């Protein structure tokens, strides 16, 4: 099923400067895997070394945060839009 993945501005340089990428996927995990297979440089910014989504990477399916659905096993259907949205964190020490 073709779904659209919206790439956030800070990561577009690693995705051929595209705002969105269309991939074939049945779940969020498959969609993200397809995107990072296509654009390998994205992987280190989305996933930590243990292969989990970084804590400050948020994923929405049609405006629903996947943490309130089935996380990366959330099903997607043709025409769905997956958005990768940053959260920002830091601190002095």
């Amino acid at each position, binding site marked *: 099923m073709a779904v659209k993945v919206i790439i*956030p*501005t*800070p*990561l*577009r*340089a*690693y995705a051929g400067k595209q705002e969105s990428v269309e991939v074939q996927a049945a779940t969020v995990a498959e969609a993200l895997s397809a995107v990072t297979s296509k654009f390998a*440089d994205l992987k*280190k*910014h989305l996933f930590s070394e243990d292969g989990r989504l970084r*804590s*400050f990477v*948020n994923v929405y399916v049609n405006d629903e*945060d996947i943490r309130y659905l089935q996380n990366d096993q959330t099903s997607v259907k043709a025409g769905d839009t997956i958005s990768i*949205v*940053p*959260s*920002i*964190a*830091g*601190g*002095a*020490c």
Partner: protein
Amino acid sequence: MSQPRVILRAGALRRIQAHGVETYPYECCGALLGKDGDGSREVIDLLPLQNRRDDSPRNRFEVTSDDVRMAEKAAREKQLELVGWYHSHPDAPARPSEYDRNHAWPWYSYVIVSVHKGVAHDTTCWRLTDDRAAYDPEPIETVEHPTSIQ
């Protein structure tokens, strides 16, 4: 190619410093709205935000994804881009910490103001390297009057 720089309007710099003083001894945070040009970017406006780290606001800040989306919308409404973020380091240097680096995104400019005993000191700007291993300094050029990046 010249080193990337950030053009920061003097009023914006003063507002960042004032925000850091206002929230001292806690960290402040906010969004940088501006225009990204070839080799430099200009910060034209700010969006001060609430630090969402209630548990450790003296040495941590957090901007939620909802706040990020709100900041993106605010930028679009002003026909600007969300080009980065600012935060304060209370009683600590204006240098990115390891925690800053671990949580940083590429491309964004990260402005840090150090606030010692309630008084704003140095203000610096940084950008994460492509390999996430370090931050490159982005020299800040302060201007009193608007400039224009194409």
